[in-house]
């Protein structure tokens, strides 16, 4: 009897989901801007990735593939990009994408007629954008940057749209329906998507649930079908009754040490701390083993550029750490502070483990929890901190990832500065041959490790929980949720 009831309930569940063809995804935060050229937050891109497309788009392997452009070519010297548009690509308002829309979009980023552009990179690197005919667009660079191709994933939007913020229109597999601040963002299937096989579901709701516990409850109750970015502890709570997917996610979790603050300006101190931290222990305790050990600021998922073998450059050793500390004039260690954003339990847990490990070599680290807003302001922007733990989300381009350490880069919150490093990064983006470029980027990673620029901890695995009858989830080495390939069965 009980079994029959159970089967009936399951059947009912299956039928209702089949009929509704609707997916609810739990997300942590609101979008910052719906206008794709103004949006900066990865939390926004995660959702709007389904609404907007560029000339190119990212694929799950971490490269770019043609989207609105059908094909592209790069000139030998790397200065000229030529895109041929796919014919018949339509915007969500039904109009066909024309070269004028492409020119409008790219010029909006670059800035034209004395107006400032919305993208610093397009402003800095692009000199000329022009239409050759009604299917071909040429983009000429002013400064060589061989990693610029990835920039063309930026959204192409219709010139005719008067308000990109209130009424976002793109060419992606889903069309924007509504956004209620603090509540939800809803998108629906775009019938005229250029790839007729996609998308497979009718509607997707991104439900904004900032509280982790509440998100898990909603998932358990069947209100939410996709619960991305679980940590290992939460995954354990869910157990194997659910469909859990795990993968490397191209994130670099690190402990930054402020190079402009004593005693972290001393390389011996930074090396001592690197020796004091036992990454394997951190991964075991904090991530239940679901993490990949790192040695520099690059995840192994970026296989072309990843420099292998740096993970064990500083083997965990209290003796070595103590010796280095004495050499630097701190035989009894010192007092310091690890500032951690309070909304990231994962980083807090990491800080606690590391603080214990540092205690073994005599460094007394106090953990200071700050609000995310305070972290962004005080640590990330004003750089007033001693040590901090954070995860840097992945980018497609190695240059984007590594230029954080270039001395004059605005977001170099490490206060790292090294002439040789700057030179190598500058050189790397002028190389058109992939292998030549990759070897320079690998060299850059070595410099970071040798200099003990930070403590590179791990790439925490991406864990997503899916409703049992939901299939086709694609994992990207980027902060996105691709809804187009999902289907119920």
């Amino acid at each position, binding site marked *: 009897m009980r079994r029959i009831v159970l089967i009936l309930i399951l059947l009912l569940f299956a039928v209702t989901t089949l009929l509704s063809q609707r997916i609810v995804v739990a997300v942590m935060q609101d979008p910052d801007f719906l206008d794709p050229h103004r949006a900066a937050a*990865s939390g926004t891109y995660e959702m709007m990735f389904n609404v907007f497309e560029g000339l190119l788009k990212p694929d799950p392997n971490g490269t770019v593939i043609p989207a609105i452009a059908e094909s592209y070519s790069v000139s030998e010297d790397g200065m000229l990009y030529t895109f041929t548009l796919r014919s018949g690509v339509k915007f969500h308002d039904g109009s066909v994408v024309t070269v004028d829309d492409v020119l409008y979009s790219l010029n909006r980023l670059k800035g034209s007629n004395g107006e400032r552009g*919305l993208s610093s990179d397009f402003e800095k690197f692009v000199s000329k954008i022009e239409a050759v005919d009604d299917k071909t667009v040429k983009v000429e660079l002013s400064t060589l940057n061989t990693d610029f191709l990835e920039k063309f994933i930026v959204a192409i939007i219709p010139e005719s749209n008067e308000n990109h*913020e209130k009424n976002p229109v793109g060419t992606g597999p889903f069309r924007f329906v509504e956004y209620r*601040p*603090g509540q939800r963002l809803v998108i629906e299937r775009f019938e005229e998507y250029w790839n007729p096989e996609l998308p497979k579901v009718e509607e997707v709701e991104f439900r904004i649930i*900032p509280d982790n516990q509440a998100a898990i*409850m909603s998932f358990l109750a069947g209100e939410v079908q996709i619960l991305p970015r679980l940590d290992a502890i939460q995954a354990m709570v869910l157990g194997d009754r659910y469909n859990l997917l795990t993968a490397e996610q191209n994130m670099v979790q690190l402990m930054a040490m402020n190079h402009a603050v004593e005693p972290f300006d001393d390389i011996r101190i930074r090396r001592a701390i690197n020796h004091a931290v036992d990454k394997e222990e951190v991964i075991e305790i904090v991530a239940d083993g679901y993490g990949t050990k790192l040695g520099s600021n690059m995840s192994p998922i970026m296989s072309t550029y990843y420099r292998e073998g740096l993970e064990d450059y500083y083997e965990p050793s209290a003796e070595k750490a103590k010796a280095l500390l004495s050499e630097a004039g701190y035989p009894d260690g010192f007092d310091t502070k690890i500032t951690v954003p309070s909304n990231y339990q994962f980083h807090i847990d990491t800080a606690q483990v590391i603080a214990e490990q540092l205690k073994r070599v005599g460094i007394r680290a106090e953990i200071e929890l700050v609000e995310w*807003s305070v972290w962004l302001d005080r640590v990330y922007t004003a750089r007033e901190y001693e040590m901090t733990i*954070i995860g840097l989300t992945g980018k497609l381009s190695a240059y984007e990832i590594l230029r954080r350490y270039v001395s004059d880069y605005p977001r170099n919150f490490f206060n790292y500065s090294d002439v040789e490093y700057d030179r190598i990064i500058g050189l790397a983006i002028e190389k058109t041959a992939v292998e030549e470029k990759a070897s320079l980027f690998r060299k850059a990673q070595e410099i970071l490790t040798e200099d003990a620029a930070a403590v590179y901890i791990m790439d925490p695995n991406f864990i997503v929980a899916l409703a049992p009858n939901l299939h086709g989830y694609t994992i990207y080495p980027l902060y996105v949720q691709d809804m187009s390939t999902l289907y119920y069965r």
Partner: protein
Amino acid sequence: MFVYLKKLFAMFLTVLLVLLITFVTFEIIPGNPALSRLGVDAQESQYEALAAELGLNDPLEIRLSRWLKGLFTGDLGISMRYSVPVSELILDRLPVTISLAVMALVLIVLIGIPLGIVSAKYGERLPGILITLISQIGMAIPSFWSGIILIYIFGIVLRWVSPGGFVPWSQDAYGAFKSLILPAVAIALPSIASIIRYTRNSIMDQMKNDYVQLALSKGLNLNSVLLRHVLKNALIPIITVLGMIAANILGGSIVIEQVFTLPGVGRLLINAITTRDLPLVQGMVLYIAFIIVVINFFIDIIYTVIDPRIRLVQRG
């Protein structure tokens, strides 16, 4: 009438002071609305454009005068986080929080007062002791915790309600009721417990009075003495406590809305503070002050209804 004007003026001053304190606090604490909106990956150009748009680079006196002007023209301004008028955001969220508060209040009155009467009547005997015990426990359990337990039992094990799935009243009244009843219970629980105790103590106090002895010796039975004579007199302090509870419910809903992911005013307030959205916070402060004034006003009226001896003039 004059009494009301005086009260109103005092209220206005209080609100003004609170608003000024919020403004100053936001000047002092670290955090920048443009930074927290854009996050870690913002390019310089994006940050600069937004900071300029929000007027963050303007000197203090300009921002202060802009703020004062908004205050006196009744314009709550535009939210820095959402780029939507503050009033629109608050009005959108208001129905959820108000329904939650009303439902909780009804539960408190309908369950708390009768149980309090029963508890007073049986005093030291078993039902009285039981109710006292339960209300002790009820007061000790924080509402966010009972909220989680309620979700677990009714949402996940029994699947009677769906946590995190709020439907507006206009769309589906039964669905809305279903999504609000658990949080309302969670908010009401500790208050039910305290209203039981207040009712009990207040009735016990009244029972010591001579008029009770007179009524009893006149031959009236205990029940009718309790309900017709004692309760009326005992209600005055209970109403006062209910007024305080009503204000507390608003505070309680801030936490409970987080637990149940309800799109109410409480969650909006948390959001506004964490993203340093000053106009939105100011708008919410005004809203909360307004609600408190309204509640106090109604309580004053209820007093005079229950006990005609209470004249507003005396209370002024």
